[in-house]
């Protein structure tokens, strides 16, 4: 058994990020797409924390705090937009979201 190094965490992060990319590109329910974006942000956070641990430098963790703050803002605004859209068009399917105004 090998010792767990930063590379292991980076590989985990890359795999999680790719699953998020698959979710964004393949699914059509916009709420699931938002969740896939959260998965990708988590992958980035794992990467940052792993390297902060390796370099024994806390700046990476400070960045994770900012990423989490932006993720919270993004979720609030994005879900607000979904609600406003649903009220007008009664759908969460992105294939039917093809108008800029109505």
């Amino acid at each position, binding site marked *: 058994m090998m*010792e767990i190094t930063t590379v292991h965490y980076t590989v985990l992060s890359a*795999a*999680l990020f790719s699953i998020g990319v698959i979710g964004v590109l393949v699914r059509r329910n916009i709420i*699931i797409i938002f969740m896939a974006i959260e998965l990708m942000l988590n992958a980035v956070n794992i990467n940052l924390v792993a390297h902060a641990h390796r370099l024994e430098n806390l700046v990476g963790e400070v960045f994770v705090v900012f990423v989490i703050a932006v993720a919270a803002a993004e979720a609030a*605004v994005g879900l*607000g937009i979904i609600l406003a859209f649903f009220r007008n068009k009664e759908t969460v399917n992105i*294939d039917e979201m093809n108008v800029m105004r109505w």
Partner: protein
Amino acid sequence: MAETIGFYTLSVLILGLAVLVVTAKNTVHSILFLVMNFLCVAVVYVVLQAEFLAVIQVLVYAGGIVVLYLIVVMLVNLKGEAEAHQDPRRLSVIGLALAGAVLLELAGILVYSSGSDATVPSSEAVAFPVQGNVEELGWLLYTDYLIPFEVASVLLLVAMIGAILLARREV
């Protein structure tokens, strides 16, 4: 040895739950898998000695954002299949291929960078007048990163106002 077993268990859990989030038919099931995924990521933070971030992860992600998602799913109240209609021009195979390309690209970067074994010179150790992960993080946030911290708070305020305006019923 215990660390190795723990890491692989956590990795399998995180990746498996992420796959379930992306593939689940029911949106509510997807959200519940997402909560478990976030909790597993919090455990990874604990292993990496980032205790404060683990707590934030549980509070903000598993506690706040997921509740937001659940409320939106409840308000949207879909009747029938959400993904019944599919644009014939949409090609999921190309999406999968592009995601595979992203993974290949990341793997390439990883192989390339591990071959060169570039060690970044660790920045000169900041002499913290405090001890412990939470205290040191707080010290950094309120000294070197004070302005970004305040900007982040303004961002959250703007996002809150924006979300209220967007979700308000038309008057």
